[in-house]
């Protein structure tokens, strides 16, 4: 790997380049694109969890003025591939989950489409369904691997034996709820099928990945599909993979050549059609001596997948690498259910997988009479416990100590239920955060000199609202040795050089390193005084150090929690996160991402829960009035800091991803603080007021 980029624009708080466009409403999101000859799609959905469609009467819809087409499995074209069962819609009469697409009405206005859809009569031969995750589900099975390609089970030594022989053990069951990603912008696409080319304005975490996913399903070459995504209003993983609405819109567009078919999922539809996080049931075991030194760590996770397509959340992964212990095991078991397929959501694996273990560590600290920070310091590994490799950098202890100082942790009385402010019981808690460095190969970038000191830099990256556009311009500026204002950046379009998905906190480092490589080649070929039109291309450089080191970001989160003695209401007046994530490219957007992640963690701790009704098989609180995310009033003093971390091994930027680490550990810190406030140990999320009532 070449030398680290010298920071000039990088590491400065450049304001978002697209900020004015966004706050003035002129930045076009997918559905906003003004298109000629639009048509509007409203889907038909299954109202049972399992069965077979025996009849669909579409005539009342077809007879309505303004209806252009009605699609069902009876008239929909055959797809070229049904390899991805989630995308193979309208190919049979089978209903595999409640809410599944059974068809679509396309009309001249969205109102007509919706009214017409309500007139279609669908008869389904309903079959018995199973939708409820239980730890003792009879069909639990062992997946071949867990997301994306981790081994399902790992074992070193013997955790059973370690637990039996240990002076102190924690052996508890922790559960996280069913969650939905719920980005502000719904999944939306605007599709035109003309001249054997499909064009999509899409709300996606990756224009090229979408194209790669849907082209073979539709029997097209990737070059026949163009995906354009200049602005995206959040994804949180749910726009990282292609979902079925894309195929539905594409099929509709194929039926109506020359029409731009516009399709935005409603909030309710997002609860069955855009992915979600599986609930998890985690048995966590810790074995330790009286001084808190761990001899065993075990995490056994039970989760759900859909019967028709597998997704295995990697919940046991973080415990494999977090703390030193001779005896270790982690397992994953899946229950196949008649539900939509789970998918990526806000730090898959790490987020739920750091809940159980980090609460268990707090329980162990209490059992050992140790400060929870000291307990973590005593179990700091010298090398990655899983691989035996050294860490390229690991500054968990520095984060814990810096956070303790900033938060006022020192001198904390560990006694539960020992502090009050009027009727409010007050407590504090801590937990660790971690997230792997995902440096993903496969992007390409071009640099072209435009004359007059200006450069055009192109890579089909995606800005989900995080500031990617801004930080990539900073990186390009430093890579070319010019000011940010000299950079014209092109992103979010398959007509541009290929880029990998905006997921796994991989974007900035993967695309950024690719830009650095393209700029290096450009300067190598054209020097510092290029001619107008000079152009060079680069691809993501390999990182030989990746084989030698374990690479992760770490952090520590601190929470103050208040629980009302009468009502059990839970408030979090203070949250502090301190992170070690390599070089921070833009302190302004980085802080925003970190506190955003922490807010999601707060939301997960206190509010979020997709409530399943097992009789019907769907999520019944499927709107923003009922599915609670934190409101402004729930967020108190919220702060994120980072320590200076110099990591020459991770990539040419010296940076680690920060998109997801903010949500990891937050819920555990809050639960631990709630215990400190009340003496009540909550092991099931969310931490709602009824858990403190008596």
């Amino acid at each position, binding site marked *: 790997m070449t030398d680290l980029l010298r920071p000039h624009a990088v590491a400065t708080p450049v304001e978002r380049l697209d900020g004015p466009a966004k706050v003035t409403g002129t930045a076009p999101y997918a559905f906003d694109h003004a298109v000629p000859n639009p048509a509007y799609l409203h889907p038909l959905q299954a109202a049972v969890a399992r069965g077979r469609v025996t009849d669909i009467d579409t005539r009342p819809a077809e007879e309505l003025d303004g209806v252009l087409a009605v699609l069902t499995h009876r008239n929909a074209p055959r797809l070229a591939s049904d390899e991805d069962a989630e995308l193979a819609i309208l190919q049979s009469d089978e209903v595999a989950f409640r809410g599944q697409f059974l068809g679509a009405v396309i009309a001249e206005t969205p109102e007509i489409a919706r009214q017409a859809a309500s007139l279609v009569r669908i008869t389904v031969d309903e079959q018995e369904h199973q939708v409820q995750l239980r730890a003792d589900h009879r069909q639990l099975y062992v997946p071949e691997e867990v997301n994306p390609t981790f081994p399902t089970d790992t074992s070193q030594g013997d955790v059973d034996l370690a637990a039996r022989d240990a002076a102190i053990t924690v052996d508890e069951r922790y559960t996280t709820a069913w969650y939905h990603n719920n980005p502000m912008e719904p999944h939306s696409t605007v599709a035109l099928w003309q001249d054997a080319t499909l064009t999509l304005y899409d709300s996606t975490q990756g224009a090229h990945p979408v194209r790669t996913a849907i082209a073979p399903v539709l029997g097209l070459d990737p070059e026949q599909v163009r995906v354009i995504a200049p602005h995206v209003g959040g994804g949180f993983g749910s726009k990282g993979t292609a979902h079925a609405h894309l195929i539905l819109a594409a099929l509709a567009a194929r039926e109506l050549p020359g029409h731009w078919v516009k399709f935005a999922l409603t909030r309710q539809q997002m609860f069955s059609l855009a992915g979600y996080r599986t609930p998890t049931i985690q048995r966590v075991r810790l074995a330790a001596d009286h001084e808190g030194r761990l001899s065993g760590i075990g995490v056994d996770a039970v989760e759900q997948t859909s019967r028709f397509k597998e997704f295995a959340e990697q919940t046991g992964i973080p415990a494999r690498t977090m703390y030193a212990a001779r005896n270790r095991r982690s397992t994953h078991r899946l229950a196949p259910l008649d539900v939509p397929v789970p998918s990526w959501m806000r730090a898959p694996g790490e987020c739920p997988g750091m809940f159980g273990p980090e609460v268990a560590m707090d329980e162990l600290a209490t059992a050992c009479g140790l400060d929870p920070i000291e307990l973590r310091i005593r179990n700091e590994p010298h090398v990655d416990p899983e691989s035996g490799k050294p860490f390229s950098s690991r500054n968990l202890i520095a984060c814990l100590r810096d956070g303790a100082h900033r938060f006022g942790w020192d001198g904390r009385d560990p006694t539960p239920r020992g502090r009050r402010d009027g009727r409010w019981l007050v407590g504090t808690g801590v937990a660790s955060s971690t997230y792997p460095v995902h440096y993903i190969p496969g992007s390409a970038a071009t640099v072209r000199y435009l004359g007059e000191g200006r450069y055009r830099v192109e890579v089909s990256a995606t800005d989900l609202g995080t500031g990617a556009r801004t930080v990539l311009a900073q990186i390009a500026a430093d890579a070319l040795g010019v000011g940010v204002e000299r950079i014209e950046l092109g992103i979010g379009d398959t007509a541009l050089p290929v880029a990998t998905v905006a997921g796994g906190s991989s974007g900035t480092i993967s695309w950024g390193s690719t830009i650095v490589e393209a700029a290096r080649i450009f300067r190598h070929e054209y020097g510092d005084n290029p001619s107008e039109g000079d152009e060079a291309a680069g691809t993501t450089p390999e990182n030989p150090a990746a084989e030698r080191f374990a690479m992760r970001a770490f952090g520590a989160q601190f929470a103050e929690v208040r629980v009302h003695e009468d009502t059990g209401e839970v*408030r979090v007046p203070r949250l502090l996160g301190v992170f070690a994530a390599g070089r921070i490219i833009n302190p302004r957007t980085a802080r925003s991402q970190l506190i955003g992640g922490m807010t999601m963690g707060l939301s997960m701790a206190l509010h979020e829960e997709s409530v399943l009704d097992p009789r019907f098989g769907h999520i019944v609180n499927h709107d923003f009035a009922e599915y*609670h995310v934190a409101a402004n009033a729930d967020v108190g003093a919220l702060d994120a800091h980072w320590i200076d971390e110099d990591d020459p091994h991770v990539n040419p930027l010296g940076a680690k991803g920060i998109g997801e680490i903010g949500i990891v550990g937050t819920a555990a810190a809050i639960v631990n603080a709630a215990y400190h406030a009340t003496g009540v140990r909550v092991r099931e999320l969310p931490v709602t007021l009824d858990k403190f009532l008596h």
Partner: protein
Amino acid sequence: MIPFDYQPAENAEGAVATVARAPEATFLGGGTNLVDHMKLGLARPSLLVDVTTLPLDRIETLPDGGVRIGAGVRNSDAAAHPTIRERYPALAEALLSGASGQLRNLATTGGNLLQRTRCVYFQDVTTPCNKREPGSGCSALGGYTRYHAILGASSDCVAVHPSDMAVAMAALDAVVQVTGPGGQRDIPVVDLHRLPGDQPHRDTVLSHGDLITAVDLPPAPASRHSRYRKVRDRASYAFALVSVAAALDIEDGDVRAARVAFGGVSHKPWRARRAEDVLVEGPPTESTFWDAAEAELSDAEPLRGNEFKVPLARNTLVSVLREIVSEQR
């Protein structure tokens, strides 16, 4: 959503006559509940008569010292009105705890009273609901009940009325002014909403064509010492799990008058007369508060999944009474 006609009202009597003539017509206030329901397919009016055009947007002091709030007064305006804040603080608090700033800017006094009871199954046309389709069954029984009733429910419906404002009005003895096809009449707020019984599709005692024109708040010393406390699953923009509106008039160490109502527990704002009876004519002590709560909640019948509401209602009432007393010392 299906096509419908819209017309602005020119005067109250004309609006009433227009709606009364058309069985599928309805009044439109701020639209924050009705329009949602039209989108969800729960309401399918053929005609909307917009009554926000009527001159019902004033708050006036009445000769007896009470206050009249026009039915078209927006929730934000009522909450901010100095007289209401001073004389009926529980009402101002209740209004401010409801919905969001944007919704309160649109929602009207009359519309707030007439918002439908809330239940995830009522709002989902793919599940049975006796309120939406009489006789189809109640999906909430045996389902998701966290927000549902513990008092006054029936085997046909366990939904709760979601208004905060109405709970405070019920405690403050407010009276609704109604203009209907048969003329004008008064209905105390406590009598406006119904228990579900075997007719859960009827939320109120109003008939088709009845238009609320105003709400009168009577003068009462206790009202100045009134509080509203809303307990919910997040700090803002959430319906009440339990709420309490309470007012105490304490003289010479004894409670002379007590007004208590619960929200979030029933198909209607729940005036707690039994609790009031325990509270009056005695000193406001902690043990009296507990007795009052027990008296009111001894008949509570929680559902599987909302058992916590009984201790929550009890604790919240005691907590609010304690607070009112400490403020009057």
